[in-house]
Every structure is written in structure tokens, then in C-alpha cells.
């Protein structure tokens, strides 16, 4: 198995090609530009389509078109670009089109800056565009996972005919790590009952209009059931030093990497700190978090690079049995292990 040192952003593109992604439509934006750049270098080598779209809006609509034709298709962007894509994403969800979107989060709101933040959580995890829909959201925290979870995103997108996000921040996108390239995907789902291919048998309709109120309600109920199935079947988490943990930290993406360091240092100092990392943000690990109070722990600290977007979901999952504290850094600042341990000490007296 080939092992290569590469940026998280590149790893997502390798994963896409290995997953059989046939087309990449994107617009450059820091800190996600290497995704478009590496796609422009790699996709043509495989006879696959790379097109630099005129705008983020065009890019997601190109994704809509390719997905409607049954292709595995991807785009990549960052905060402001994702905001622009929201209408198109709503159309993709409304027309049940599988596609993969990589969001390398940067600082906001507005132009913000290009440092790492996690402030797209709400706009990606909660749906973001108009209407009742959810995105499947996978949150890698390493270059290897950028590859692996991008591949999984294609699989889940097809399985549920729904947009799937790979959501991470500038640190994970920009850093290099060793990546073991997996085997390419060889089997693809049959889309012949809905994809438009320009043939007699594929004269289908890709559409999100339901003029009749009852029809639209029925369609929304169908989507609702789909999201319930995703919630039931697809939750992924990583637990580190959780068996005997007295204090639990929760974080995803690069926050979770820092938390791992904090846990290691805490353990060296006899503090029983553990890490609970949601790998899927939708579906959110509601049941797993709801069980945390049963372990008789002293406290839960959610660490995020946003002002309490993740902690809202943690607290909803806890159903009032406990409340998670919050430690956040913003504006491109990444929390350090030392800061987190100081906060743990201050909150829980250890």
C-alpha cells in the first residue's frame, strides 16, 4: 500500500479519485485552494473532468448537473464559498442528488480571515440553505481521514441520495501527514432508475418542485425518514482514554487533535481526562453523548473554534442531565493543550 506525505487538502482529492469521483467543479478560496489545484492536476490524468467554475454558485450547480447524470462529483470550498453554495445545496437535497462537498473552515463572519475556525458548524450541520433538509457531515482530523472519510462521503451520499460534507478546518486542510492510499473503489451503485444519461431509458426527471401542498409534505416526510435512517445507522465516534475518564472533553477536527495532546499531558499528571470525538456531526452521536452522565463523570468540556455551536448539540444530547462547559478560541487561533488543561483545572478543581 503506497504511503505518501501529503496535505489534508490533497488527501481529499486522492480519496475522491479512489472513490470513483468523475468530476470536480470548484472555485479557489484559501485555505481550500489546494483541493482545486490538486484536482486540476490529477483529474485529467484519469480522463475525469476538472472545471474551474466562474463562481461558487456556478460550481455547486455544476455539481447538481453532474450528480443528476449519476456521476460521483465533488466540490471544495471554505466559509464564504459555502454560504454562496447554500441555495444549490438545498436544490441538491431537494432533488435527492448525491454529491460531496469539502469545507475547509476559515475565520468569519464576513470576510473574516483565512485562519482556521470551526464556525461553519451551524451552516453545514443544520442544513444551511432553505427548506427541511440535512447534510451528511463527516469531520476528519488527520490527512489519512481526509482521504478515508472523503471516500466514505461518496459511499454515504450514494446510499442515501443526499449531499455529504467533509467538514474540517484550515489546520487539517493545510497540514501534511503520512497517508496510506487505500484500494480504489471497484463497485458503484446502480443509478439507472433516476439518473439522466441522454438515453432512451434514462429520460428521468431531476426536480425539487412539488406544487401540490400534499405532494410536498409527502416528499418532506420522505426526507425526514431518510434523515432518521441516517441518524440510526451512520454515527461514528472516536473515544480516547474514556474507560476510566472522570472528566470528558468533546471536540472534532483540529480541536480534537489538541484535546488528544491535552489528554496525554493530563494523564502524565494523574488527571483522568478523556476525549470523545464525534466523527459524524450529522448524524450527531446523540445516544452516545446521552450516556455520558451515567458514567459518573465530574464534568464535560466541549472545546471548539466557534462560539458554542457544537456545545449546543452536546447539551441537547445531554437532555438536561448534565451541562457541558465550553472553551473556545476564535479568529484563527487554535487552542493549545496548556490552555485547555488550565481551563480543566479551573472548572473541575483538578
Amino acid at each position, binding site marked *: 500500500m503506497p504511503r505518501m506525505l501529503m496535505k489534508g487538502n490533497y488527501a481529499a482529492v486522492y480519496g475522491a479519485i479512489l472513490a470513483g469521483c468523475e468530476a470536480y467543479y470548484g472555485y479557489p478560496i484559501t485555505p481550500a485552494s489546494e483541493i482545486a489545484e490538486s484536482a486540476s492536476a490529477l483529474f485529467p490524468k484519469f480522463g475525469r473532468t476538472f472545471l474551474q467554475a466562474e463562481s461558487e454558485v456556478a460550481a455547486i450547480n455544476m455539481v447538481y448537473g453532474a450528480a443528476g447524470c449519476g456521476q460521483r462529483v465533488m466540490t471544495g470550498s471554505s466559509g464564504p464559498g459555502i454560504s454562496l453554495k447554500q441555495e444549490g445545496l438545498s436544490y441538491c437535497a431537494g432533488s435527492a442528488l448525491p454529491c460531496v462537498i469539502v469545507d475547509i473552515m476559515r475565520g468569519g463572519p464576513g470576510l473574516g480571515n483565512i485562519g482556521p475556525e470551526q464556525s461553519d458548524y451551524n451552516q453545514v450541520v443544520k442544513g444551511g440553505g432553505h427548506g427541511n433538509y440535512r447534510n451528511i457531515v463527516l469531520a476528519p482530523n488527520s490527512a489519512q481521514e481526509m482521504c478515508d472519510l472523503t471516500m466514505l462521503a461518496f459511499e454515504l451520499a450514494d446510499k442515501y441520495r443526499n449531499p455529504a460534507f467533509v467538514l474540517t478546518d484550515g489546520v487539517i486542510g493545510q497540514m501534511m501527514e503520512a497517508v496510506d492510499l487505500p484500494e480504489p473503489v471497484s463497485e458503484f451503485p446502480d443509478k439507472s432508475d433516476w439518473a439522466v444519461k441522454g438515453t432512451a431509458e434514462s429520460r428521468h426527471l431531476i*426536480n425539487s418542485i412539488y406544487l401540490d401542498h400534499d405532494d410536498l409534505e409527502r416528499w418532506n416526510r420522505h426526507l425526514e425518514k431518510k434523515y432518521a435512517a441516517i441518524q440510526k445507522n451512520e454515527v461514528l465516534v472516536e473515544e480516547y482514554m474514556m474507560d476510566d475518564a472522570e472528566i470528558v472533553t468533546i471536540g472534532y477536527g483540529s480541536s480534537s487533535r489538541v484535546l488528544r495532546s491535552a489528554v496525554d499531558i493530563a494523564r502524565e499528571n494523574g488527571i483522568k481526562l478523556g476525549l470523545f470525538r464525534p466523527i459524524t456531526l450529522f448524524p450527531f452521536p446523540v445516544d452516545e453523548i446521552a450516556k455520558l452522565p451515567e458514567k459518573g463523570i465530574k464534568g464535560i468540556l466541549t472545546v471548539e473554534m466557534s462560539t458554542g455551536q457544537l456545545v449546543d448539540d452536546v447539551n441537547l444530547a445531554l437532555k438536561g442531565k448534565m451541562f457541558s462547559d465550553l472553551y473556545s478560541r476564535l479568529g484563527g487561533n487554535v487552542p493549545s493543550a496548556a490552555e485547555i488543561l488550565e481551563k480543566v483545572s479551573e472548572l473541575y478543581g483538578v
Partner: protein
Amino acid sequence: MFLLPRRSLRRSPSFTGCNMEKKTVLRKPKGFIDVYKHKPGAEKDRTHYCPGCGHGILHKLIAEALEDFDLVEKTIIISPVGCSVFAYYYFHTGNLQVAHGRAPAVASAVSRANPDSVVISYQGDGDLAAIGGNNINQAANRGENMAVFFVNNAIYGMTGGQMAPTTLEGQKTTTTPYGRNVKTDGYPIQVCELINTFTAPVYVTRTSLQDMANIRKTRTAVRKAIMNAKEKKGFSFVEVLSMCPSGWKKDSLQSQQWIKENMVPRFPLGVFRDVSEEAETVERPVPVMDTEEVKKIFGYSDFKASTIQKNTEANFKKISLRVSGFGGQGIMSTGIVLANVGMEYGYNVSWLPSYGPEMRGGTANCSVKIQEDTIGASEVTEPNMIIAMNQPSLEKFEKIMVPGGALMYNSTLIDIEPTRNDVDIYKIPITGIADELGDTRVQSMVGVGAFAAITGLFDPEEIVSLIPSLFAGKPDKVLNMNEEAVRKGYDYVTENYSV
């Protein structure tokens, strides 16, 4: 006025005056679905368009052409937002209904996904020239293989008669109740003229549905655009001046008259460009999906598992390194080479750059971790080693070092001494050694060699053995110089320090 398409006339003997016994059969072209199953309500045999509207005529011209050219099955129609949002009710083709203005973007991807299909982007004036203005221009400029039918009726029909980009000067609409004032609302946009400024389009024409003669010209244009798409000639654009009796508050005949008297003077009819004959065929690649072929292109079989042994006697078990200096000093590549070598030794490694404007401001730095355990944070906030290539870097990063660490600095460019006395100091003329070798650019490999000596993690000859793959594609001279740089950096440390 009852408009009969020409083909129906031709095929209907009763209109030719001969053989009067044969029964006249007027039928829908096969380009249409027989029963409009997608259309809600009971009336599945007629369109939703208003009496006198031009959409029905244009739909029919398209449907007839698709049948006549035997293209119904391989055609994909992109329905916009506007009155023709429901074009998919009628056409017996593949259909995608899309967001407002985005039909050309969607069609671009549909055409690339299905290069042998005939892709039609059907759009109105608000959709195409206002909210989707950029998308149509860019698709035209790329020469996407598609036929665009642009219905210009100078108004937003579906939304209820608001101003369109093509609304005429002085024209009253529900958002220009006093008439379009060009001083505040701008002038009606002449889209054909705009599209004609791009190099790529092969066919650009404006026609009208105002009377039978012009409908015939429209028919010719429709057929040419569809044939161009079939023959992969690229981007064809047909603007059709069309009646909107409901939006204009006129009857059918008045509407036709209104086009003639008011629209045509602003939107002159005619062919703006036709290079269809000499157009080059649009070629699209065939995707490689075979797994063995994919692995071959990625070079899976070229990868060899590393056999390099770790040095169990190394001075450092765990590296948390910051490399810092001016942009152009090879700061990033120093870090990447060390991470690569670490990976070949079987360590967990991470490399994190400073990125963006910081890079362009003259200073650059990166974090490198090399260790046995899984790596947590990739940003090095408490380095046990730094490589400072210029003075600001030394000043910035020596402060955050942990006691007992190793501080390497480039004495060629740094005149000051480090202030820390609880770390091991390595004063190395990194740039000077590189210059002696004949190229300042090899200074990063001098640093790599010195790193190997200080930490004891890497054998310099193992690093040298990796150079051809690290600098793949570079000429031998460059490879040799970098190899020498590693050795010189290594030797400088071992000759001047006890490590």
C-alpha cells in the same frame, strides 16, 4: 391567428388541395410526452402557458426538430425558473429542473457528463440576463456544447410582470409603474450583442415569433442550434422575441404587433454569427474507472515499503520543531523533507505551515512533529527544537522553547546571540555553507543534515539515498548539490560540537 407548424401542413393532405379523401391528422410531435403526466391537475393534454404566449410555439419547434432529427431520446433539457420552469411537463427527453439563472452552469456539467447527448438550456430573460447573467456569459465563453434558447419577452412573466433586464425604455411593469427610467434602471440589455463579443460561440442569432415568416426563421434557427449540439460544434445561442400577453396586458394580436413595433427596433433581428460549418468538434475525455488502471496511474507498484531502521540511540525520541525564516529560504521544504525522512524511518510525522498572507509578508514558518506515538496537536507551541534562518525568527521562537531543547540558528545572517541559556545552542553558518557549495538554495538541506547530526534521528547517507525521490524530476547536478549539502551540514555539527 391560428398558427400551424409547417411540418403539420406538409404532412396534412387536406391542406395541399390534393387527395381530399384522406383524413387530416394533426398530432403532437414525438418530442413531447403523449400525456403530460408530470403536470398536476386534470388537463394533461394541454400546456400551462397563457393563450398567445410564445413559449408554446417555441416548445413545438424544438419538439418537432428533436423528432425529425431522431434526437428525442438523447436530448436533455434544462428547465429554468420562470414560466418555462415546467418545460419538463412536456418534453419526452431527460429533464433537469434547476435554480434561477443556473441552467448554463448545470448544462455545462450535464454536457460533460454525457458528451454524446444533446443538451438544451431553455431560459427566460430574468433567468438568463439578470440573476444568471454571469453563468450564461461564462458558458458561452467556454464554448460549452449546448443549444441555448433564450426567450426574451421583456418582462418577468411567471413572477407577475416585473421589470426584466430586457424591459424597454419607458415600458411599464409592476416594478416600473412609471415606465422604465434608463437613468435609474439602466438600458435594456442586448444579449445577442453581448454573447457575440466572446470568441467561442459558433452560432448567435435573434429571431422573433411575431408572425409566420419570423416563426419560420425561428424554426430554422432552432434546428441549426440543435444540429450543432448533436454534431458537438459547441455553443449555439438563439434569442427569441416572444409574446407575453398576460404580462403586457394585451391580446395575442396586439402582442405580436407590439414585438414588431417596440421590441425589434431595440433588439434587431438576424444572425450575429454563424461559424458552425468550420467549428471544431468539442472533445471530452473518457474517464478511467478500472481499478488496476487507476492504481497504475497513481504508481502504486512503484511504492516500496521503507526498510530504514530507526536509531534506538537517538538523542531525541520526540521532535517538536519550528523552522522559520524569510520566504525563499526553503523554510517549508526543510520541514517537508524532515517529515518525509521521518515517515521513511517509520515515525508518525506532521508538518503544518503558516499560510496565506503571512507567507507573502516575508516571514514563513512551519511546525514539524516526529514521534513514535500518535500525534495530537500539529501546531508546535512548545518546541524542543528550532531552526532559525533569520534574526526575527530567532527572537520570536527561542522564547517559546522548552528547557533542554536544541536551538539551531543560521549564523551567516544572524548577528545576535540567542538569549536562552537553558537550551543547547548550535551556531551554524547555514547560508554560508550553501553558498560555498555554489547555490544558496541548498541551504535547506544543510539544515536537514545539521538536524540529523544534532538529534541523531537520521543517518545522513539514508537522507542522501532519499534525495532522488524527494527531488524527483530535478537534474543530477541539483541532486548532487543537495546530497553534498546534507553531508556538509551533518559534518559541520559533528566537527564543531560533541553530539
